[in-house]
């Protein structure tokens, strides 16, 4: 039988992570650490406001015969809209999203996020022809696997009010 894998959004405190299945639905980011985010990101009058970073990871609930490997992540390279820049980083460990609720998340960087393996990149860097590799694998067992993809939106003064455009994120993995 083939493995069963879902895409999860991770929220909550480091010691009590909530893992929410987002495989069949969209994922929103705002200015709070929520599995289903309904908060907004205020358009600033100067500088930028940031979303709380959003952490995603793959989770296996029906084990493969041998392994799940070769995890990749990419976007459709589209724009979220004027004044909105999207970033993605790779994290070997989880760190709860922090910031000032209702106002701005803390900037996603290696100082604020202890698990990041390096500085985040523009989300548009990673496409189907230039995928982001998420290290890690899973043997013949169940559980989370692969490094986490951590995303954040940077909203500047030129952004317009209202919902941003939606973008499609894709993950892939190999099973043997």
């Amino acid at each position: 039988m083939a493995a069963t894998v879902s895409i999860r959004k991770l929220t909550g405190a480091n010691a009590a992570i909530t893992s929410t299945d987002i495989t069949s639905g969209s994922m929103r980011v705002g200015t709070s650490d929520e599995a289903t985010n309904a908060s907004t990101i205020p358009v600033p009058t100067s500088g930028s406001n940031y979303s709380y970073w959003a952490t995603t990871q793959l989770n296996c609930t029906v084990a493969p015969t041998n392994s799940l490997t070769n995890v990749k992540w990419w976007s459709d390279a589209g724009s979220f809209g004027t004044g909105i820049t999207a970033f993605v980083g790779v994290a070997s460990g989880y760190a709860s999203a922090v910031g000032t609720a209702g106002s701005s998340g803390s900037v996603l960087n290696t100082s604020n996020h202890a698990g990041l393996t390096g500085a985040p990149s523009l989300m548009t860097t990673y496409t189907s022809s230039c995928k982001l590799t998420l290290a890690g694998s899973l043997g013949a067992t169940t559980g989370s696997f692969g490094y986490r993809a951590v995303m954040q939106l940077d909203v500047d003064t030129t952004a317009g009010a209202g919902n941003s455009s939606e973008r499609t994120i894709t993950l892939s993995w190999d099973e043997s």
Partner: protein
Amino acid sequence: MPLTWIAHHSDGTEARQSDGVNYADLDRANLQAFDLWQDERLILRVDLRADDVSDGIEPRRLIYRRRVWADSNGNETVFYLSGWQRKVRGIKVQAVNYVFEADGSVLMGGQFTGRDFMDDIYILPHEEDLR
């Protein structure tokens, strides 16, 4: 409808995924052919019989994976990589087919390019012959 594999060895024996045979336990050096079946239909057979291995050409070795693409809109695409790799004067050469689970169609690719679904594979412990 998922695809399942049948491996044919050079001694005439078969190993079937549907019988619970583990891909990791295949005798990779003595494979004659590797099939992908969808229900009762043979979709693809990869010929792995020994051929000319003179002048720096090494034997062909099986490449197989079930690859999944899952997007944030809830769409999932499953395809199977089935082909071979050999070294020619030290350089890896691949011939990989991509079989789409949705309709059994086959795309014959070549080298791993990293474009679209043609990513390289992560070599597993029992696939040291692919290094």
